[in-house]
Structures are given as C-alpha cells and as structure tokens.
C-alpha cells in the first residue's frame, strides 16, 4: 500500500497534472471549434437558414378565382356561375389512401382508370395540396359523403362554383371551359400560378377572353407545424374575380334564331350596319356546352363528333361556303366602280352561253331573256354575270371582294375562325401553282369555283353595302367608342346642302369609304330591293309589305356537285337528290330598306335554293330583330356595370 505523503504521491501528482495539461489544450481546441461552428451557422449563414426556417413554417394554399360573367346586350347572363358540390382529398390528412380510394370507389362509382390517375397526381404534388376527386357531385352523392365523413379522414366535401351556360343557342359564340390540359399550360402563360382544378376557356369568347375573365388567383398563407396542422393564418389575398363582359348579342333573338333553324345544319348572322355590333351569331345544330365543364361524357362526345351536321363546328365563322349568287352584288359593284360596264346595257339570256369551248349554264334553263344589270341582280341571271365577270377579270373582282370583307378574318381572337378564299391569279399561282384559266373567272363571277367565305364575312359584306359603303369593324363585345358613321349620316341628313365634297367630309368623321362613287353602292342597294320586293325577284316570296320590316336581299346557292347534262335535261329538283349532294342555300339582306339598320346572312347547308330555304329564315329573324330595335336603342348607353 502506498502511504499518504510519500514521494510517490508527488511524482503521481506531477504526472497527472502533466497529462491534464494535454487534455485542457484539447478541450480549448474543441470549444474553439464549437464557437467557430456557431459563428458559421448563426452569423455567416443565418440568412440561408432563416429562409429555410420560413419555408418550413409557411404553407400557401391557392384560392381559385371566380370566372367573370358574360352577359348579352340587355344584361342577361349567357355564361354564368353556379354552385357545385365537389370532393377534395388532402393526401397528408389521410392515414391510408388505399382504403380511402377503395371506399370512395364504391360510393362514387369511380373507375379504376380515374383512381390510377388520381394516385399518380398525388405522387407528383406536395402532400398538403388538395386534389379534386370529383368536381361535380350530385346532391345524393354529396350527402352520402357527408354522412360517412367521420370514416373518411382526408376527405373534404366542398361547395364551390363552376361555369354554367343557361342557353345552348350561344354555345358556339361563347364557347366553353374545361379542365386545363398540357397544351393550355404551354400556350397560356398566366395559367402557371393558377391553382389546380381551375377551368380554362377552350373555344369562342371563353378562350378569347380567358386571360382577363379567369380572374386573379388568391392565396392563404398559414403557419403550419411539423405535422402540417394549420396553426394560424398569416396572410390572405382573396384574389380577384374575373372581369365581367357585356356582349353585343341579343339573347332573345339568338334563342329565336335557334328555334327557327330547328336542327338544320345552318347559321345566321345579324349585324348592326353602323357600328358592327353582332346581334346574333347562331350556328345549328347546337350542343350542350355544360357537358364540357366537368369533363365530357364519352358517349355524348362520340355522338357529337359522329353527327354529320357537325354540331361542334361554329358554322358562322368556321364554316366555309362558296358565296354563290350573293357575290353578284360585289361583281356588279366592282364592274361599276371600275367603269367597265354600263348598268343599262342589255344582254339576252338564253339559258346557256358558250365560251372557250365550254358551256356555261344559267340556273334557269329556259333563260331570262333580255336583262340589264338591275334585272340581272333581281332575277340572279348567271349568263349576264358571266359576261360582266369576263370583262371585269378576276383580279379586279378580288380587289373589291377583299375590300368588302371577304377572304380575311372578321373577328379578333377567335381561334376557330377561318379566313376563306378570294381567288385571284396571284392567289392561284401561289397556292395551287397553276395559271389562271379564263373559264374560272366566269365561275368566280357567280361565286363558285375557288371562292370560299364564312357566313359572317357575307354578313359584313352586306352591312358595308347597306351603310352606304363605309368600313365597319364587327364586334362581339360592347364598346364605349363613339359611333362616327351614325353621326356622319345624321350630319348629312341635317345639312343636305353641305358644300364639302364627300371624301373630305368622311375624313372629318374618321370614316373609311370603300367606294369611288357612292351612286354605285346605291345602285346595288336598289337592285337588291328589286330582288326582294318586285315581282320576279328571287326572294319575292319572302318579302314584307309593311314598310317597317321591308328588306332588300340577294339569294344564292352554291353547288356541291356539278349538275350533269342529264340532270339538267330532266330538270331534277334539289329536293329530289341526296341530302349530301344538295346545294348550300344562302341569303344576304339588309333591313329596313327605307332606313337600313341591320344586315343579315343566312346559310343553310344542303338547303337547296336560297329562295326556298334561306330567305324564309331571314324573313322571320329580320322581323324579330326589328321588333326589338327600339328596346336595343333604349339600353344603348348602359355600361356593363349598370346592367
């Protein structure tokens, strides 16, 4: 045993102290290391970690904005919002997604494909972001979910709003909304920060106005704990509902037009000839745009796309038809404007003319006899216009036709609108790569051959003739802009002895005249009057005797298939041949004749003749429009907000 106080203890103490010194040095170094680490974390990298801490702390939930409402001229809703019942799942609140889906599958009749899709979507997004299992539950499904809610953790029944279209007649113009697709995300920048499940405009106005009508997405910012539970609300931005729009449409007329068209494959456009307001733009048959909002039923979709009358197609702007005899008003105008034809010149129509070794037939086999330009328009004599067209040449015709609105898009921002074709020698070389044949000029002179136009283009053409030959810009949305054309006409009526020449006068009103001599326009208008209101006119049977409704129009029919010599011999009637082979029936008009206000175009696919099927429709619609003219005048100055 070692005794206390022996020398050994001293040696031992020294040894211990020596070794302790080493340890103390080591301790100092380690504490310096810890100090250094604290400096690095809390001073040098503090900003980085503060950001990370906030990322932990805050979570954002997006709030889908309400889509703006689209109304007609009188303030009636044509695209509204309605309450819908939805089912959302927040994945992180559900302890077992498998069993949850199993239960929902039986409760809501979900397909395996849908469940697979939902699961894949859950895997892609953050666990606290809700996914929409069903965006339109029936009341009975909704109440069943609510009944079993306590057994379905993670499920949230939600009352939301969705697009609702009260009337099918506006389906084509207004278009529809549907789920966002990959393509939408690529094309539409503003969808990037939108929440999932928002509906996006696919066609028509819904697509054109999408950016502003969709609204501004809001968000709620919450402080959450590590388990995702919301602790407190930090910030809320309710977002903004989309802009509301007032259109120029008259829903009453639109509905009425739809009824008149029944289930014919047809379209009707009515336009205010002074300001370009589109009163009606109907396409028939229609479809139910509501069926797209929550994902279209496959059966209904197949039914729509297999229908030979093409219900999804907006025929007013996307349907292309040869203008047929309706082009004659442009041919006549062009000939007069270019001074190559005396309107009083008589030609004899024998029913057929032979040029360049080819026979060109008039629609009337027996011929019209002696015709001047007015009667040729009145009775739609083809032979007369073959000769006019021959002398005019296709290029001058094309220039006038383009000036009056054919061959270019009429509206802005409608993806479905088509351009049509106004043929010319240059056009044929460019697009067909061949030289122009003179015989083709003759076909063009009666609106056949390469000519292709939309019903809206024909309506615009008629409107610009009816208003005295001034350019107007057709529009679907109301605008606060001053109507110069009306003011000009008012001024001219009040100052009949105005000494200023007409071209200086119109430039004072910021108008663009489309004529060289307004007398030529008036001549054409008069000829159109004759066609409807004088015996022998092509649309004489559809006339009104009442001054108030009296209109002036031009019929047309465009051939689908050339008549064979045999059919011509047998005098086969249109109604006796196959539907698919029948001519398209066209009619353009303006009304009332004494003080023109509106232009109309009617196209009935495979309708046979313009006088037989298109003009009677126009007659009915014109009456309806004129009856409502005063009402329209009364609400003219209301802005969208007041309605």
């Amino acid at each position, binding site marked *: 045993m070692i005794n*206390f*106080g022996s020398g050994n203890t001293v040696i031992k103490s020294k040894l211990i102290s020596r070794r302790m010194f080493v340890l103390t040095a080591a*301790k100092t170094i380690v*504490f310096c290391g810890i100090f250094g680490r604290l400096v690095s974390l*809390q001073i040098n990298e503090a900003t980085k970690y503060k950001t990370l*801490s906030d990322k932990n702390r805050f979570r954002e939930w997006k709030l889908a904005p309400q889509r703006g409402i689209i109304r007609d001229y009188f303030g009636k809703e044509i695209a509204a919002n309605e309450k819908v019942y939805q089912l959302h799942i927040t994945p992180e609140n559900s302890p077992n997604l498998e069993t949850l889906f199993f239960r929902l599958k039986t409760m809501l009749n979900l397909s395996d494909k849908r469940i697979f899709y939902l699961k894949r979507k859950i895997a892609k997004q953050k666990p606290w972001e809700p996914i929409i299992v069903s965006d339109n539950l029936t009341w009975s499904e909704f109440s069943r979910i609510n009944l079993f809610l306590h057994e379905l953790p993670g499920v949230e029944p939600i009352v939301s709003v969705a697009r609702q279209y009260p009337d099918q007649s506006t389906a084509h113009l207004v278009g529809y909304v549907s789920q966002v697709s990959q393509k939408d995300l690529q094309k539409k920048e503003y969808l990037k920060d939108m929440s999932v499940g928002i509906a996006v405009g696919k066609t028509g106005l819904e697509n054109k106005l999408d950016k502003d009508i969709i609204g501004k997405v809001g968000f709620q910012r919450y402080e959450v704990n590590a388990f995702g539970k919301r602790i407190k609300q930090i910030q809320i931005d309710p977002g903004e509902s989309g802009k509301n729009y007032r259109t120029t449409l008259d829903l009453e007329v639109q509905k009425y037009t739809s009824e008149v068209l029944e289930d014919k494959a047809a379209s009707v456009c009515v336009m205010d000839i002074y300001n370009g307001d589109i009163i009606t733009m109907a396409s028939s048959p229609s479809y139910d745009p509501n069926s797209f909002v929550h994902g279209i039923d496959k059966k209904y979709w197949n039914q729509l796309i297999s229908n030979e009358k093409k219900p999804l197609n907006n025929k007013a702007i996307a349907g292309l038809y040869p203008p047929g005899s309706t082009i004659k008003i442009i041919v006549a105008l062009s000939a007069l404007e270019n001074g190559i034809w005396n309107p009083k010149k008589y030609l004899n129509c024998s029913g057929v003319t032979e040029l360049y070794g080819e026979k060109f037939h008039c629609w009337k086999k027996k011929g019209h006899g002696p015709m001047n330009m007015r009667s040729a328009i009145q009775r739609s004599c083809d032979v007369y216009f073959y000769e006019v067209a021959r002398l005019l040449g296709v290029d001058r015709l094309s220039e006038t036709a383009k000036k009056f609105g054919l061959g270019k898009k009429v509206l802005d921002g409608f993806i479905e609108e088509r351009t049509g074709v106004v043929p010319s020698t240059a056009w044929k070389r460019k697009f067909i790569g061949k030289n122009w044949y003179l015989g083709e000029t003759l076909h063009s002179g009666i609106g056949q051959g390469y000519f292709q136009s939309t019903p809206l283009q024909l309506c615009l053409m008629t409107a610009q003739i009816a208003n005295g030959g001034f350019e107007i810009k057709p529009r679907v949305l109301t605008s606060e802009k001053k109507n110069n054309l009306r003011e000009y006409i008012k001024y001219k009526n009040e100052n009949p002895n105005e000494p200023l020449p007409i071209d200086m006068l119109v430039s004072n009103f910021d108008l663009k005249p489309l004529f060289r001599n307004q007398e030529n326009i008036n001549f054409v208008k008069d000829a159109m009057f004759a066609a409807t209101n004088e015996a022998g006119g092509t649309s004489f049977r559809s006339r009104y005797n009442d001054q108030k409704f009296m209109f002036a129009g031009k019929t047309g029919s465009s051939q689908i298939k050339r008549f064979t010599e045999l059919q011509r011999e047998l005098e086969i009637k249109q109604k006796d041949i196959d539907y698919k082979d029948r001519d398209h029936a066209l009619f353009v008009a303006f009304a009332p004749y004494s003080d023109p206000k509106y232009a109309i175009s009617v196209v009935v696919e495979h309708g046979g003749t313009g006088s037989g099927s298109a003009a009677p429709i126009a007659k009915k619609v014109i009456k309806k429009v004129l009856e409502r003219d005063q009402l329209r005048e009364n609400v003219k100055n209301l802005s969208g907000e007041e309605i």
Partner: protein
Amino acid sequence: MFQPRSIQSSMTLRDKIMSMDYVLVLSILLLGIISMFAMYSTDGGKFDYHTKSHILRFGVFFLMFLVISLFQIRLWYQTSTLLYLSFFILLLGVKYFGLTSSGSQRWLNFYFMNLQPSELMKIGLILFLAKYYHRISTQDVNRIKFLFLPVVALVAPVLLVVAQPDLGTSILIALGGITVSWLAGVRVKFFAYASILFISLTPIAIAFLKPYQKARILTFLNPDRDPLGAGYQIIQSKIAIGSGGIFGKGFLNGSQSYLDYLPEKHTDFIFTLFSEEFGFVGSLFILVLYSIIIFRLINIGDVTRSSFGKLYCYSFATAFFIYVAVNMGMVLGLLPIVGAPLPIMSYGGSSMLAIMLGLGIAMSCKIYKDTPVN
C-alpha cells in the same frame, strides 16, 4: 506542507460552507435557471408538465449536490467500489427488468422515478478507476496485470449499455474511463493498441448494430441522404440554430421548436431551442458558462492534494466537457446523432442525478482538499 488532521476533522459546518467554490455553485444555478426558461419554451410557453418536472428535479438534485458536497471525501473514496458494483447490478437489472421505450431497454422503474443506471455508471466508473489508480503506484500502472482490472471494469458496463442498445451513453462511459486511465499515466502505446484492436473489431461490431444506428452514422456523413428520415433531425436542428441569427428570434418565438420541427427538443436538442430563441449571443453565453464550470472543476483538481481527488476532479471535468462537446457537436451537425443529453440543461432525471452527484463529489474534494482519503 501538510496540515494536521485534527484541523480538518474539526471543520464546522460554517467553515465547510465558506470553503465551497461559489463561482461553480452560481454557474450551476444560473444554468439551471436558464434551463427552466428553455423548458418553459418547449412546453409552448405554458407552465406545463416538462417545466414543472424539470424545476422539481433541478431543485431536488441541486440540494442533493449541496448536501453531498458536505460529506467527507473519504466517504466517497471508501464507497467507490461499492457504488460501482451497485450501479453495475442496476445495469444488469435493466437487462432483465428494464422498461422498454422506443426500441431500447434503458430504464428501471422506481416508485418516484424511472432510473437510467447507465447515466449513473458514467460517474461510477470514474470513481472506481480513480480509487484504483490512487491505490497502485506509478510504476505498477503500466504493468499488464494491473491493466487487467481497469479494462474489465470499463468494458463490462460498456457492453451492457451497448446491448440496451444505447450507443451514445456507452461511448460517454468509455470516454470517462479512458480519461482516468490516461491521467493515471497509462502509456500511449496501450491506447494505441486498444485503438487498433477497436478499429479492427469495428466491421464486426457494425454487423451487430441496429439498422437505425447504421442509418445514423451514414446520415451524419451525408445528412441530405434521407432528408425526411434519419437526416431530418440534423437538418432541422441546423435550420433552427442558423435561423436564430445573432440575437435570436426571441423568447418563446422559436418557430422551429414551437411548430414541432425539432425532435427531442426538451432532451438532446434543448441547446438548439435555446440557440434559436437567443441566437449567437445566447449560445455563446451558454458556452461560456460551461467553460467556467469546467475550468472551476479543473481548478478544484489543481488544489486537491490526494491523487484520488485529482484523478476524480480532472476526469469528471473532462467527462463533463465531453458531454457538453458531444451534445453541442451533435446538434450543430459536427457529430452523428448519438443520443447524449446536455448536462444540467436537458430534461431527464437520471442525467441530472448523475451530474449533480458528480459535481457534489467534486465540491467535496474542494471542501476537503487537504484531507487525505485513507
């Protein structure tokens, strides 16, 4: 050089109290008070279970520390072997009667508390080895036959604790034992041999590691390996400390802990919580307090005459330092998460008991610095 024994034994209570190290006492008290506020914050700013329980424990064990200080150092010298053996028996008891919680069996259920004998063993081993090396001569220290007992005394409890499994505590126990041996003068070459042996056995040991322990080591090497799993704790702890900045987010405003992003916030990660709320300044203050405590413990070792006292105080100071360094290194992302509480501040009765026992014995060395132990 030596004072007569009679003076020492005739010390009055007043003398004893007067000769305490007040810097040490005050530092401990201050740290204890800070820990109460930290605990209050972990309870979400409410005077709740953890806060109450922590205050009670600190109060009781702090009194115990003062009482223990007054006991003769000779008493601790004489009973050290007994203490070691009884702690060892308790460890054995854990193996057969222990409570299991989150996959490891560490606790014995006593009526008033759940005792974790492995914490006590940290002190027990130091006491035992200090006495052992006090008794043998400097020459004998490096003789193989005298190395045998310390190795057994060290390895046996460490193996028991590893088997619980509790890697963190077993490492801390071993480091305490190694420190005593180092101070007693065991040659560097023996430590070298032991290290080589240890390293060569490591691959075999790894095969016996629980999967979560393997994951912890891998995670330490690369915390982003599994950010939502094992790396979560390190990442969230670093975020909490870093986001505290220079002055911290303010008392009760530590969003990381308040919103439960911090795991084990009242035990192993109490420093993280404090650091988030009081920033660099607060962290530094804690670091300084611990440095003072360690410095004062070393100082007691310096003034104590007996080899037992010196060995014990130095070793305990070093062990105390290691506990602090391992815990801070862990929460700062410098060491793997091994499960080591921060002395005094962390919630946990056994740890508090062991630390206060250790501090009490050190204080007893101070009061009886001139008294021989045998």
